[in-house]
């Protein structure tokens, strides 16, 4: 079997599994220039490369919408599935049941997740399906020309000037409440924070929900929008300064921290997530605290960013189902079809 690097343009550097950057890239984007989603795609390429994840063991899935087009723009060596509107969580759930060794990356939008797909989003989290689920959140339906989505803030205006009359659904609040075990919010324009959060999510086992505010330059980047680049830059409130040390690098402390100022979380793969507190009494392992702070942010028009909640001791869905070590998709006939004696037993019982 030849490796990807042998048949592709030689990459300038290679990662810990010997791959260059190229296999982590995808097709050229067809989204608008300046779209926040493109920045997120770039972070995905970088993070998977830097974490040295084998792209053949990744599946990338999406629903319908601008965000859901983006899996074509990264990880060309990974199997992809652009499914139906709002129903990617079910497809992803089935896929990880079939092969629990795969790493699932779901990319959705705010319409795809918070409107048509709300039911599946909720139940995916409740099951703690192992997946990194990114919501590329721009508060509007870009592909159908700018209608409000369910994450648009009350009073936020559309390009036409119409004000949104309904309150938003906070996807992170829902995620914390309903069982996601890693919940974070970031901003497509905050490269450093998004990288750290994404890497930590990749090291997590369970449902990791990343709500990434990602402005729509065409339909929702004007004065009056609460999802514009300007508004987000002016109103984002980071909870922590986030450091991430992958499991394959030596952990050494940078600087000295006063006691109680840093949360350190050991992720499932041995990586270390270090959250340097910017708000003294925020505790990312407390559901109650997280919900309280999310409500407050909503009231005050803040965009709260950082790791809102993390729990590393909940079993994932494939663990709950106690699935065999061999992926179900790779079982042979001997494992799939019980022996004749089993059928004979049942026939005797029914006779």
């Amino acid at each position: 079997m030849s490796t990807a690097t042998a048949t592709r343009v030689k990459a300038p550097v290679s990662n810990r599994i010997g791959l260059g950057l190229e296999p982590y890239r995808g097709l050229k984007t067809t989204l608008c220039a300046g779209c926040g989603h493109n920045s997120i795609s770039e972070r995905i390429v970088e993070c998977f490369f830097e974490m040295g994840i084998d792209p053949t063991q990744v599946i990338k899935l999406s629903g319908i919408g601008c965000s859901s087009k983006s899996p074509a723009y990264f990880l060309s060596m990974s199997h992809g599935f652009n499914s139906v509107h709002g129903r990617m969580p079910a497809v992803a759930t089935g896929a990880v049941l079939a092969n629990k060794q795969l790493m699932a990356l779901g990319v959705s939008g705010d319409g795809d997740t918070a409107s048509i797909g709300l039911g599946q989003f909720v139940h995916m989290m409740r099951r703690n399906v192992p997946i990194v689920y990114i919501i590329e959140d721009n508060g509007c339906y870009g592909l159908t020309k700018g209608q409000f989505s369910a994450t648009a803030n009350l009073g936020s205006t559309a390009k036409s000037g119409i004000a949104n009359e309904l309150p938003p659904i906070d996807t992170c609040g829902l995620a914390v409440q309903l069982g996601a075990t890693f919940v974070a919010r970031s901003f497509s324009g905050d490269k450093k924070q998004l990288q750290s959060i994404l890497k930590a999510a990749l090291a997590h086992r369970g449902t990791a929900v990343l709500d990434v505010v990602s402005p729509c330059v065409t339909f929702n980047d004007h004065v009056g929008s609460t999802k514009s680049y300007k508004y987000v830059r002016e109103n984002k409130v980071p909870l922590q300064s986030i450091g991430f040390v992958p499991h394959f690098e030596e952990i050494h402390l940078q600087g000295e921290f006063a006691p109680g100022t840093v949360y350190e979380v050991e992720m499932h793969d041995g990586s270390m997530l270090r959250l340097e507190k910017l708000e003294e009494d925020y505790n990312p392992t407390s559901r109650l605290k997280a919900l309280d702070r999310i409500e407050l942010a909503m009231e005050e028009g803040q965009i709260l960013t950082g790791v809102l909640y993390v729990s590393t001791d909940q079993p994932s869905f494939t663990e709950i189902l106690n699935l065999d070590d061999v992926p179900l998709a790779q079982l042979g006939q001997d494992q799939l079809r019980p022996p004749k004696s089993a059928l004979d037993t049942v026939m005797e019982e029914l006779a």
Partner: protein
Amino acid sequence: MQAVNASPSGEPVTVPELEVVNDFSIHVATVNGSGSQSSNLVLLRALFEMGIPVSGKNLFPSNIAGLPTWYTIRANKFGFTGRKKEVDFLVAMNSQTAHEDVQALEPGRAVVYDEPLGLDALRDDLCFYPVPFDPITAAVCPQPKLRKLVRNMVYDGVLAALLDIEMEEIRKGIERQFATKPKAAELNWNAAQAGFDWARENLVKRDPYRLTRMDGNQGKIIVEGNAAAALGAVFGGVSVITWYPITPSSSLAEAAQGYLNRFRVDESTGKATFAVVQAEDELASIGMAIGAGWAGARAMTTTAGPGISLMSEFVGLAHFAEIPVVLIDVQRMGPSTGLPTRTSQGDFLSAATLSHGDTFHPMLIPATPEECFEFSAKAFDVAERLQAPVFLMLDLDLGMNYWTANKFDYPDWDIDRGKVLSEQDVERLQGDWGRYRDVDGDGIAYRTVPGNRHPQAAYFARGTGHDEDANYSEREEDWIRNMDRIQKKMAGARKWLPEPVIEDGPKARVALVAAGTSHEAVREARSQLRLEYGFETAYCRVRGWPFSHATEAFIADHDHVYVVDQNRDGQLRTLLRRQFPAIHDHLRSVCYYGGMPLDARTITDAIVEREGL
């Protein structure tokens, strides 16, 4: 000639001299939730063990407790165990329906009833057997709380006395029914015995019906179609089942879970080689099954009509992205919520072309438990061979009722995973493969499965337009080429589906075509037409869609072909007309859509009228 006998009151009663042996129906009217299911199953089991061909059909309401329910047991020495419209022996335990049930009987039939109902005043042309159920029950069941539950077992004993059912078989049936609850078994046996003793002492037989041991069930089993299909899935190698509760399919998923827990958990590690997930709705259950099928599992979902409607969009995706998945549809009466506990064949049309655009989904249509088992196992092979959604079409009558069947044969074929490229295959092709290329000329392309480690194995599955290499495309020629290839693939689907079963003779110019549970009624109707009218018919039972060439030739070869449908609009006939437009004028319709299991007389009467017999 009539025999004269004496009733308990001493009055002479006329009795037909001819006995009716092993050929009648017993109809038990009870209240839902009163424990009657156990009594009825014991009765069914006893007849089965006496070697009498028998079936049991539950006519139940959409309700847990309190509404009327009926159980019909048909014994027939000739092996016709489809539903019979006429009730021969009524057991009236339910005051809500007793008057109506009695009024509906033909003269000369028999009624066992709860004495306080006073039904004997209603008619003078029936054989009435009043039984004081409460005092009989109270004598053997000191605890008042339990009386309601064992009361129905008393009628098993009464029927045993009146119909010559062997009490030894009743006893064995009770032990089987309450195998894990010896105290309940004892209590129920005492109730049955008390009913038997009371009847022997107090009732004088005045009806012609009698049962006697014969040898009709050698090597047979009693099973529900849902359990048979569940077993088929297990022995067909299912690895992911995702479902949402809905009558009449829930028991299929639950039976499968039970068998998987028994046979597919590693004894040393305790780990499962399967996943069963109760989803949040049918959108999710089909979505999960499709995700699993895409990622290489043998995946299925099970549902009924309302679920099929909800799955529509996803099934179109699986058809177009070419993902294997098995859907079991246990049909009930629609449209809408319809009659949720009544049987129907109303989903043929919607399943066959479910979803928007040009779609086409192969169906396998079993008529017996044996076929439920075999076709369910095969459906996974067909789905993976065609890389497509495949429907297994049961109905409530087949799925939820008890049928006598031959023991199932262990599959004698290897599991077929279809055209899947391994790492080595992709390497051999030097990465030069395309997910939707028609390499073999049969319209079926090769796929890779996620997790394949070859760097050029990946492709992008999508419901949007795509070219042969799975790239997004809106080009007209790409679209048409792809749609034509899928059509070619589906035209070849019949090769993988079960052939029809044809019974023909030189004298028959008139024929029947049927599918699924219509089979039992058609078998008997053909016998009625032969015996009562000397009228020979031919018969083609289709078992898959698209239909076989043999079906086309059969229709062309007969002047009038009656297509039997358990729906109003002749859905099976519509599919035949669609596929065979040139011979559509041979086709006539016999449609029944009342929600009961189809009976032979309905078919016979329709043909007699239309053929002027």
